[in-house]
């Protein structure tokens, strides 16, 4: 079995919480902090930490604004983030294909 696809998996995305955030953002142009937190059932601190890690990797952009005097934080995937996520999915598919009985 070729271990190459497995070794190529992006460690930043591979973590469970960050993969969940990336998956949700891949399906939506942007999502608010509270939408991510509530849908994934994470704590504020957890989401903040994962968002920061993804932001540092250049996969995610964060916009802070105000809506009716209330702070609104929205997140979106960057071009690099979309590319990395697509690559990650392709690798998973390669792993599945590779292990299929012939």
């Amino acid at each position, binding site marked *: 079995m070729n271990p190459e696809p497995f070794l190529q998996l992006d460690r930043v995305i591979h973590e469970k919480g960050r993969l969940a955030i990336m998956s949700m953002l891949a399906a*939506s142009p942007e999502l608010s902090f509270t939408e991510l937190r509530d849908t994934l059932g994470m704590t504020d601190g957890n989401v903040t930490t994962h968002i920061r890690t993804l932001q540092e990797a250049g996969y995610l952009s964060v916009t802070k604004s105000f*809506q009716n005097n209330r702070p609104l934080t929205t997140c979106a995937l960057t071009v690099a983030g979309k590319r990395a996520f697509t690559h990650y999915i392709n690798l998973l598919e390669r792993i*599945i294909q590779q292990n299929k009985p012939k």
Partner: protein
Amino acid sequence: MESNWAAEHLQVIRTLMERAALYRRALAPIMIFNGVVGLAAATLGWGMQIGSPRGFILFWAGVGVVAVTGSFLLVRRQALKESEPFWSPPTRRVTQALLPPLVAGLLISAVLFLRCGSGPLYAVSNPALLWLPLSWVVLYGCAFHAAGFFMPRGMRLFGWAFIIGGCAIFAAGAAYGVTGLGCAHGIMGFFFGGLHLAYGVYLYLTEHRGNHA
């Protein structure tokens, strides 16, 4: 082994992507509000004997404006309360899905409004006037069925209830020649009032149960 792990990972990703695209606003207050408005309007319309085609169309168009405005304000209030954008991508998708059948209903009403006189609804020989409330019901059902692809909790079934119910009443009406003012307002009250209210109460009870679980 590794293949199973990768397949499970892909399944989780797929589920999360589907969940991200769903409309998440609480629907119970919106449905209950629309149900109360529908029932009140049907009673009012029947009580005031609004029977001319133009009067009927204008009256229910006004009710529609009240219902849409109220729903809009309820959704906006929820979005503000949860610090989320009002015009979010799921809201946009739901609106886009709702629009075509609703626009069709509006155009049909406009054509009838322009072509019909102001005689009593039941006296007009044009059977289209019996069809009008039913065409609204069926088109409304189509709109909600389409939006149901982006909404959880049985919205498509709700759409089907309108479509099948509207067609069934149309078939019965055509067979037995059911017409009349009370019938037209009754159809509107039953579907836009009763069904909304029943679905809203169901959602309210199940949402509460879900929150406690």
